[in-house]
């Protein structure tokens, strides 16, 4: 499997998980108030967390795609 394919598969799966975490059925498990984190209800915090995961994912993807090339 060539490099490009591998990147597409791994990151595609990663972002699919991020998406499913924010909608049904993934988000169902987070639909509660406790525990509060940073003063936010858990359901609210859940979205803050996954938006961050998307952000991290794009950084990894960028580095992976352009890694080793100037």
């Amino acid at each position: 499997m060539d490099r490009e394919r591998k990147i597409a598969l791994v990151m595609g799966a990663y972002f699919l998980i991020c998406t499913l975490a924010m909608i049904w059925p993934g988000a169902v498990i987070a639909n509660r108030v406790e525990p509060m984190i940073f003063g936010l209800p858990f359901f609210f915090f859940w979205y803050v967390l996954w938006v961050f995961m998307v952000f991290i994912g794009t950084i990894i993807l960028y580095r992976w795609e352009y890694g080793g090339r100037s």
Partner: protein
Amino acid sequence: MQDWWIVTGITVVYLIVVLAVGLRARSQQDSTLVGYVAGGRELGLVILFFIMGAEIFSAFAFLGGPGWAYGLGAPGLYIMAYLGLGLLPWWILGPKAARLGRKYGYLTQADLISDRFSSKGLSAIIALVSVAAFIPYLTLQITGAGYLFEAATGGNVPFWLGALAAFVIVAIYVYTSGLRGIGWTNVLQGIIMVVVAWTIGLTVAYRFYGGVGSMFREIQAKAPEYLTLPGAGDGMSWAAFSTAILVSAIGFTMWPHLFMKSYGADSERTIKKTIIIYPLYGYLLIPILIIGFAGILVFQDNPLDNQDNVLPQLVVNVANFSPWLIGILLSGALAAAMSTGANLAHSASTVLVRDLFVAVFDRDMPEQRVVSLTKGFVVVLSVVAYLLALVNPASLVDLLLGAYGGVVQFFPLIVAVFFWKRATTAGAWAGLIVGSLVTLLFTFFVTTPFEIHAGIWGFIANIILLVGVSLATRPMPEEHVKRFVEGSKAPLEEIGESQTSQPSA
């Protein structure tokens, strides 16, 4: 209250500065259409980022977002979710659009689609669907500007006058400086808006509840239904919530004004860097939603008639901020409405003139005339949206979600252009038309089944017809479709300047 003079004064000064920055940018570009539409194709990262960013900081974010948190509670989080996800498809589609745009000199989204499917009529349909989606979006910005002026001046500037003032300014700077004008104004406005959102959000939580944590504790004790799905009142089911996120995330990059901007990007890395920073814009929704949640207990005994007014009501009438601060806050929120409004007015008129008038009726229209007609329609569309704002007080979120149902119908076509050689003209027509009609049906005439967003039903019908009809009709010439599927694989950096400045139709 005579303090409103201070508020109005600060706002007026701010609007003048915005206008001046926009006009200054004008002297730095030529007046050809490519210059006017795509910023001369050399937009740097900072400008591109703020142009796209200004999308988020619209009247929707400042009024509709808190409005939903105040009215329903947790369902408002759908906005943060789609902002986080919305630009991901662009990682693949954006560079491809930029490559073909540079290669064949496209200016609009419909240029690309109608060239691939060899159909000028398709271009007209796309133009009509786009404008139908743009008008509610533009109306939303104007309505927002009107609320803000009205609330902040204690009613001394009535709704109609506030909305009018903001949009005369928008029309002037779009009219005179094109996209570059929008870019520089957005740089200025973007910075102010971030500061404003966090300032109001944290201050409001501290002033009424002594902090964000204790605010949510208090809501948990007195009205816990707001903090989880389905939310308060009618709320939102999981199906409605999930499909609202999906339709917005898929439709997001299909907005013609965002799509067009990829043609102006100077490198693929710029596009990807923009996508990386983008989810962080979603964090602007944290203070915004906090403001809405704060309203839940503050207005518990006297519920607001209009939930979209929760932010101005809290800031102006309840929190007792100094008029100086209110002026700055108002300016920031107004800036949000105006920058997005400018962007929308500019794109809608470009789409209408190029994809409908030029493509279908008069292919040899001189460029000078195209530019002046585009500018004319900026004014016409702004006026139409202004009149709608005066008569249509629908919820801001509903206006926006309806518009997304329309633009999401472009997604299957764009994917087919880049990846599916077998897609045919008939398939594209069938998919787009039936998809749009199904969306209209479930938006306005029939209650949507299973509470799934109407746009998703249209999207599914669209894909089925695009695939089914394409397979049932004769394939398009291999040479022709190769230009798009293979042509979009060569990196942007290898393409150089486009051969001609006209679409090679």
